């Protein structure tokens, strides 16, 4: 069944490429959903059904919906990036990222091939580990979420004189 993995991986990569190249935000987001769903499929294939479900529910579901909400809230005119996305712009970052990818591949190739010990990990196992040895980390994650909540509710305020001032004369230099 290995061939299935390679097909799904190819879909993921193509979808992700479309995410970063599509000038329209909404379409880019939809490609991102595809990319996430295929990663979820990979998770399922390698024996991690629980995180596969989380990937679909939280990433593709909640977080992406959040993005769409914001896009709707801003209600901006179709802000196409076509005039920003000229070929020349891709050159520098492309070279940089290609080099990064090459180095990473070199790292992966360096390591010895080891045969794995594959098995399906049940959700109950994940739960036991989370609320066993990782309990403190769970609590810290709760704190993180709380601070994210407070931070975002503070940041989105629109009143004058709030955290960010409207740019006016004499703002900086």
């Amino acid at each position, binding site marked *: *069944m*290995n061939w299935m*993995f*390679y097909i799904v*991986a190819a879909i*993921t990569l193509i979808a*992700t490429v479309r995410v*970063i190249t599509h000038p329209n*935000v909404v379409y880019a987001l939809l490609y*991102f959903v595809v*990319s996430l769903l295929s*990663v979820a499929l990979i*998770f399922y*294939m*390698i*024996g*991690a059904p629980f*995180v596969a479900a*989380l990937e679909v529910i*939280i*990433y593709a579901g909640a*977080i992406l919906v*959040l*993005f769409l909400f914001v*896009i709707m809230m801003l209600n*901006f005119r179709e*802000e196409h*990036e076509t005039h*920003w*996305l000229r070929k020349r*712009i*891709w050159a*520098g*970052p*492309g070279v*940089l*990222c290609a080099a*990064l990818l090459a180095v990473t*591949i070199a790292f*992966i190739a360096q390591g010895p091939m*080891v045969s*794995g*010990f*594959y098995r*399906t*990990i049940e959700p109950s196992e*994940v739960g036991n*580990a989370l609320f066993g040895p990782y309990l403190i980390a769970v609590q810290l*994650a709760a704190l993180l*979420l709380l601070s*994210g*909540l407070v*931070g*975002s509710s*503070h*940041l*989105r305020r*629109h009143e004058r004189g709030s*955290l*960010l001032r409207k740019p006016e004369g004499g703002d900086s230099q």
Partner: protein
Amino acid sequence: MTQIPLEHGLLLASALFTLGLLGFLVRRNLIIMLVCVEIMLNAAGLAFVMAGAHWGQVDGQIMFIFILTMAAAEVAVGLAIILQFHWRYQSLDVDQASTMKG
């Protein structure tokens, strides 16, 4: 359940990560940039789950869950910043916010 070599999974993860980085560097739309950050986080999560599955250990999945949590918090704050940004500049072009320079 398929037995995919660890190296191939990690290759996919690094390719995804690099694509995310490329997008972050090239795009000027703040929302897309945030999405690219999500791609990179997702790639890191993929690498964790891959390695966890390879060793048959649960820890990889735990790490993914934490990455997920962090991504959720980060998206919440990031989107709030985007709202504020749009209100200030009437645009999502990140290059307009360039007043903080030396």
